[in-house]
């Protein structure tokens, strides 16, 4: 990971609106093919940061470069790599989705009609693409925004709250789409409050609060390095045996230690950083105890988020 080249480099950026400091000395990097998620409570400055990256706002201090181009001094070059969606879907509502896309396509010589059709298909708007955008639902508008942003094969995709308005199946499609885009080497920077989805989608997540970037975690680290827990539900009637077995095995192997708790009749909660659920499952099954369900509880992004932002409400 570290060896991959840096696509987006935000250095010590601050943005003040009068007395309000919306973004405070934020530095972050997005590397090639990486999906970077930005989260944080309302007002934490995510949108402001993104607007500065896109050149909509000028930083009060610090600088931002995209592929090595300074986005103040070499704006055209910097922006050339970027595809973006805004916090709120923005289209010409009195035109059809198709017309909106064609206007964007018009701006790039290497984007032709076939590409517009391809992208339409990709975001699943084919059936409604010739309807006026004002008749679209929020999710459909969101899809149109994404279609528009990927039309020109951007190398850096910046999406401000792209998940807003997606139903579960749309969410699934989106995750697949982003992963395939990232697999082709495009970097993605996105913001969201949907922590579970971020967890699934992102390689790294940054948490912002009050204008500061207060934490940055690679998802891989989060899953391996931190304590996780899981619950096991066993078949009714073998609670006592199970309890015994768990106690016996608790410190048997130095590499597989855990602590456990009986939550209810058939359910045990196991907390461990080393014992994988699959292993414990085998121990139980081999001992003739039927395991009905295993539920893993790694330390989630949500827990990290809550601990860092002091449980600030997510609306």
């Amino acid at each position, binding site marked *: 990971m570290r060896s991959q080249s840096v696509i987006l480099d935000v250095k010590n950026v601050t943005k003040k609106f009068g007395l309000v400091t919306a973004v405070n000395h934020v530095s972050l990097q997005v590397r090639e093919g990486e999906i970077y998620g930005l989260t944080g409570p309302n007002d934490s400055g995510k949108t402001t940061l993104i607007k500065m990256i896109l050149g909509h706002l000028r930083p009060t201090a610090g600088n931002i470069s995209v592929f090595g181009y300074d986005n103040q001094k070499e704006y055209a070059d910097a922006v050339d790599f970027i595809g973006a969606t805004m916090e709120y879907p923005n289209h*010409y509502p009195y035109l059809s989705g198709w*017309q909106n896309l064609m206007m964007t396509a018009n701006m790039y010589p290497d984007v032709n009609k076939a590409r517009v059709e391809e992208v339409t298909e990709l975001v699943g708007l084919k059936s409604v693409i010739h309807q006026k955008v004002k008749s679209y639902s929020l999710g459909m508008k969101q899809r149109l925004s994404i279609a528009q942003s990927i039309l020109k094969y951007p190398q850096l995709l910046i999406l401000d709250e792209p998940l807003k308005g997606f139903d579960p199946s749309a969410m699934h499609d989106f995750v697949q789409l982003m992963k395939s885009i990232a697999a082709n080497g495009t970097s993605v920077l996105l913001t969201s409050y949907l922590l579970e989805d971020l967890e699934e989608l992102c390689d790294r997540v940054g948490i912002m609060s009050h204008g500061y970037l207060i934490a940055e975690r690679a998802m891989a680290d989060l899953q391996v390095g931190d304590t996780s827990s899981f619950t096991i539900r066993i078949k009714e009637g073998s609670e006592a045996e199970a309890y015994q077995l768990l106690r016996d095995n608790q410190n048997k192997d130095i590499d597989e230690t855990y602590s456990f708790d009986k939550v209810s009749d058939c359910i045990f909660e196991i907390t461990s950083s080393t014992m994988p659920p699959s292993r414990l499952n085998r121990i139980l099954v081999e001992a003739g105890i039927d395991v009905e369900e295993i539920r893993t509880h790694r330390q989630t992004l949500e827990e990290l988020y809550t601990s860092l932002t002091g449980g600030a409400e997510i609306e």
Partner: protein
Amino acid sequence: MNKLFQNEWIKLFGRKGTKVLIALALIASVLAVGIQMLSDRETRVSWQEPYQNAVSRYEAQLNQYPEYNAEEWLSETEYKADILRWNNEIQKNRFCLDSGIPSWDWRMGIVDRYFRNMQLLDAVRAGWNSQDLERYFGFPSDLDLAQVEETNKELMVYILGNDYSTYNKEQLQLAEERLLKLKESVFVEGGEKTVELAQADTEMLERYVTYNVPPNAKDNWISVAIARIRENQGNIIEWKYEVNTDAETARENVMLSEAAKVSIQKDLFSLTNNLPSSDIMKEVYTERTTYLQFFENSFLMSASVVILGILLAVWLICMEYRYGTIATLVLYPFKRNQMLHAKYLVLEVMLLCVTLLECLITLCIGKYLYPVSGTDPVYMTVVKGTVYWVPYFAAVLLRYLAVFVQAVIMVTFAVMVSVLVRSSSVAVFSGLFAYLILPQIVRMMYSYFGKFFVLRYEMFVNLDLTRIAGNLPPVTFAEWWAASLIVIVWWFIFRRVSYAVYKRQEI
């Protein structure tokens, strides 16, 4: 750039509202026909009708007039004067009706004189004394009644004979004699001015004789031109000898004299080259409405093009902020200035098309519904003492071109305000206010504050370029070139400001 233009075109014309507004602007030019019809219904009546109306009105007045009553009236003489006057009017109108003399006939002047004399004679016959005659009718007390009767006989001969050639010659001879006498006499009442006015009269009559046209006929353009030249000369002489004027009035008189001289020059050019200017033709009476009159009327509608320009410009700029599309717009691989440039270009092309369409519609309707032209007029203008002219239809085009330029300038202003405030309601209000109301306010204030009033350099008051085309400065205080310069400078500033702001603004 081409692509940007295409996109802006789609944005502008993809919207229903745009088409509706353009349709409304074009309908406005068709509406001119309706206005023309209404005004025709008021004015286009048979020549007899005004006379018949006058006769019945005076008869009704006479019938309703109560018996004389010493308590209610100041004097019996006044009472009688009214009756005398009204009877005289009835006779005159009846006479015109019976002898077939419409109001635009050259003999109208003679008829007036004849019946004025009749009034005198009637009064004398009824026993009025010369003191009352002067008091109630304004007749000089030293009139020779026999002479008056003699004159009236002569006048009647002309009226019935309809022989203007002889009449002109005789009048010319009289005028020349009078002029000679004035020049020879040592003391002239009114001095130089009287002599100059008499000179002007002589010149006028000479022209009537030379061109052999009826004098003061309202339906003959040559006659109208000759009368107009005399009127302008008269005004120039009056202004020249006006005394006790303040500096401001004097300055204004000089300017008015200049304008009158230009008018005279044009009319003389029309006469010598047999090319009636549209100015003259506008004053000539015609029995049916001509296309010239229709164009004058319909031209009032052309302001709709400017208003259309303001509305669409504001919309095209502000909707990007409202829909948030400005955010994606600036990410495209073009400079922000190029985007604004494309917007300007689309608006200008659209306005040019609408102006030409409106012009075309007007021309077609005019030619089709009002084919009568009287005589085909030409459009004339004087630049640096030389008369230039173009066929009238070319002039119509030129006028619409001036409207187009006006629209372009107002669009620039509207775009600038829109970029600055990003609020369509504020921008529309500013645009309409600047175009429609501000010039009135400035003109009004100018008349209070005089020539040092600095607001005259404000653009909008100088913007009425169609006035320049009509040889009038847009405001009384600026030469046409100064007004144009002011407009161009402001236009340049507006344009620069809009680019500078658009380029730098945060979104």
